[in-house]
């Protein structure tokens, strides 16, 4: 239920905050409330926050399962570890899908409200939502095996350390590059975001989508192998 309701809650909260902050500035006209509430900035921030929140929620599928007793019980039943992990992976994937659907429905509602309130047509952020869906699937491919191997707390910590290390490495590498190469990289990234490199953008997004699904399937296979190894790291 949370993955359905969350996009709506985040959108409503953010628009309330921005609306309160914008109270002093009424120069945009009488329709400033709806214009602010349905602006592209609010939508992008809401999508980003929704992504961060839901990525944490997805891991709650495994919450509380990192107990030795439960792990040995799972291994002892006829269906065994494979069926247990299969169910978890399918559930996690379905939750990603549910988030995508609820985000899409929220966006159609916002677009319709904006049109009726101020007569302006909104641009669709469907492409961003598609990328976010596959990003969630891709992230889970790495995080789930880590959690199974090291337990929920340690696995999440290792995940955060890896992501931060990659981010820091990227920043350090970019900063030590010569100035002209830095400019070329930022120019290319900017073109990528605005669709200037249309062909390459489509190919990379298509490849990323396929890679995410393949990574998710391989992650399941890896998790099956790692499950009993990780049991020793769990609490009683």
């Amino acid at each position, binding site marked *: 239920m949370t993955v359905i309701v969350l996009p709506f809650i985040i959108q409503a909260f953010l628009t309330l905050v921005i609306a309160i902050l914008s109270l002093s500035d009424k120069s945009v006209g009488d329709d400033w409330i709806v214009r602010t509430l349905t602006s592209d900035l609010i939508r992008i921030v809401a999508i980003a926050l929704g992504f961060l929140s839901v990525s944490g929620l997805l891991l709650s599928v495994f919450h509380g399962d990192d107990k030795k007793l439960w792990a040995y019980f799972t291994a002892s039943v006829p269906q065994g570890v494979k069926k247990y992990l299969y169910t978890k992976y399918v559930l996690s994937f379905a939750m990603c899908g549910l988030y995508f659907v609820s985000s899409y429905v929220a966006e159609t509602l916002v677009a*319709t409200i904006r049109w009726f309130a101020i007569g302006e047509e909104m*641009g669709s952020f469907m492409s961003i939502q598609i990328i976010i869906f596959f990003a969630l699937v891709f992230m889970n491919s790495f995080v789930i095996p880590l959690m199974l191997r090291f337990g929920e707390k340690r696995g999440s910590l290792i995940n955060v350390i890896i992501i931060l290390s990659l981010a820091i490495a990227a920043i350090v590498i970019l900063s030590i590059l010569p100035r002209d190469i830095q400019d070329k990289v930022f120019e290319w990234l900017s073109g990528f975001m605005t669709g200037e490199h249309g062909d390459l953008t489509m*190919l990379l997004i*298509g490849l990323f989508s396929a890679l995410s699904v393949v990574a998710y399937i391989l992650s399941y296979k890896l998790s099956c192998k790692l499950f009993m190894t990780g049991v020793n790291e769990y609490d009683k």
Partner: protein
Amino acid sequence: MTNKKLEAKRLIIFILLAFGISWIPAIILNCVFGYHEWFETYKMPFFALIVGFGPALANIITRKLTHEGWHNSMLHLKLKGNIKYYLIAILSVVTMGIAEGVLATIIYGKYDFSDIGGGMNGMQIAGNVMLTLSVVPLMAFNTFGEEFGWRGYMNQKMEPLLGTTGTVIVGGIIWGLWHAEMTVAGHNFGTEYDGYPYLGILSKCITCTFLGMGLMWLTKKTGSIYPAAIMHAANNFGGKSIGQYFISGIPEDYSPAVTDNLIVSIPSFILGLVFFILMLCDRKKEKKM
């Protein structure tokens, strides 16, 4: 009330609701705003979602009204042993698209295959194909609104009453007629063709009947409506667009008539018949057992 009478009553309630929930807002929106404004732009996308989910809502309301419960709702994924059907759902549409592109080149392009690829380079084609194939399953939530109604409810009620063949034909016609409001507004073929709007509605009923064969086969094989939703999404949201790379030799200003669309759709009709024959064979096997 006998079982058949009860099922017939449920079927009628479902059809009335499916048409009502979808048609009433569509008619109002077409009259007030015009089809292009509310359906083809991003001004009122929420209403398009409601109209598309009419059959699904009709399913839910009919079950509630007639106290049917959720037996045979077909909402489970049923992935085990059925992955091949999920793949068939996408690949069959891609195959149809390619075959239709080749047929269009043969008939209307006069065998001129020199412009295959449409002037696009390998990267563009590869990117387009990969993006289409990855997006299509996601768009299945859109077509879930129809499939949960038609294959998830109507076909199940119809088959004990009319048999498999009757269900395919009558179900396809009903599905095509459900589109009539939008077809008349110009959704599928525009409004400037000979025989408007009757030829357009007839064409839609024919294509829905043949597409319905594949959708029904997938649903019966898997016991789930998701493969049908994915196949429907592939059909609606670009699964056939891969076939455009096989179109060549046709003048850019050529505007196909409704009958031209039907002729080019012959590969889809053939594939539909294959699915239909497979269904009949399965039915024979079930009866023997």
